């Protein structure tokens, strides 16, 4: 693994692997979509409306998975001074924010016909929304500090504080929701999902993950090259100053 801590080695590896990840990710999403939308039987209660879970659930999983990976990347940058940790966390953040927004949007689309409302202040919905705000704050901090090394240091601290706080926020929101209304309609332990419904979901989730890694490689390469460009430009300006 240390070999690929060198940005140049990583660039070479990422360049070779990116098409494979994208190809496999898109293929799996295509297969999952087909299985989920066409092959899987309609739900006995929700009919065809349940099929949105094939977009919604993987997105919600990814929203947490991406933040977790950002925290691991930030920690490796913080503890081991891993040169690619900050790059990886920065590159992952917008993707994570989009997954979060996608989970919220599809959830609202599903909620309107099923619950009769676009939005309820349910514990899980609320913590997902707060997660989106935390993603936005992280991205905003990167954008606000001009100097990349300093931005990287501050952003990794924020990412780790956020990682500690996200579970606390989640549980406090759960506490709040149960305090206000004893209803837990949305946590009914429905019937065990049959394999014909579950398989497409797992394929979709895997496809999302693989696609995300491809996207991460592209964004990390862009970031590394952008930093080199910046250094070159500063050197040129320095030479003429």
């Amino acid at each position, binding site marked *: 693994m240390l070999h690929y801590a060198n940005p140049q080695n990583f660039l070479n590896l990422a360049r070779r692997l990116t098409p494979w990840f994208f190809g496999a990710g898109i293929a799996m999403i295509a297969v999952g979509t087909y299985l989920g939308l066409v092959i899987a039987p309609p739900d006995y209660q929700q009919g065809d409306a349940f099929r949105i879970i094939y977009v919604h659930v993987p997105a919600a999983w990814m929203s947490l998975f991406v933040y977790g990976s950002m925290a691991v990347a930030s920690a490796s940058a913080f503890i081991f001074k891993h040169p690619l940790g900050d790059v990886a966390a920065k590159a992952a953040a917008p993707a994570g924010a989009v997954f979060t927004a996608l989970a919220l949007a599809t959830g609202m689309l599903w909620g309107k016909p099923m619950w009769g409302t676009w939005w309820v202040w349910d514990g899980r919905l609320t913590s997902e929304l707060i997660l989106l705000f935390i993603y936005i704050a992280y991205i*905003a901090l990167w954008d*606000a500090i001009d100097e990349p090394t*300093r931005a990287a*240091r501050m952003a990794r601290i924020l990412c780790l504080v956020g990682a500690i*706080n996200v579970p606390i926020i989640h549980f*406090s929101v759960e506490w709040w929701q149960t305090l206000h209304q004893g209803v837990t309609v949305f946590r009914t332990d429905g019937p065990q999902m049959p394999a014909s419904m579950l398989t497409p979901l797992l394929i979709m989730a895997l496809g999302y993950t693989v696609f995300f890694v491809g996207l991460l490689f592209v964004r990390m390469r862009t970031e590394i090259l952008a930093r080199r460009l910046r250094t070159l430009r500063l050197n040129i300006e320095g030479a003429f100053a």
Partner: protein
Amino acid sequence: MRAFTALLLRDIVLSLRSGGGAWLGAGFFVLIIALAPLGLGPEPALLKSAAPGLIWIAALLATLLGLERVIEPDLQDGTLDLLRMSALPLEFVVLAKVLAHWLTNGLVICVLAPLVSPMLFVDAKALWVVAASLLLGTPGLSFIGTAGAAVSAGVRRGGVLLALIVLPLNIPALIFGAGAINAVQHGSDPRQALLLLAAFSLIAAVVASLAAAAALRLNED
């Protein structure tokens, strides 16, 4: 210890004497409470049920006010470089700054809140919970806020960014704080919420002082 006290006193004096520091937060807090009936209508029942949330949202926003001046001026005028070189560990520097911020901001809100809460028709017997919840919760707000200020110090127009960073992280305090007042208004025991609020502040103290010290150590070009 002497360095700690000196820094604490310096920060308190600075925030008291520079541009109405402490009263800014307090005035802002009272203003939000006074604005609420104008927006929601003067209906006592409505105001009473909205009061726990309003008081705590006002506290969250008012705590933000002084934060921009906790770290930023020290970074600009080079004091931070001296603090980095001093024998006092940066964690204690952070502690002094949090304490100074809390004494000039959070504590003032704790004292004012029971006085203005009756404007929102909070029962007299619930006022001690208003004060207790703020006393337990506002230190946590100051800790998280100072960590946010340390991370965003040196940023142009840092104030908005600071709010964006700090407010989501402070949500647990809002939930438990308003929850405690809500509980006592509905005749149930507020102690669970108050204990959770204290736990939030304690966790915030540990996490935020380490994070803020790390940020101060690294926040240089």
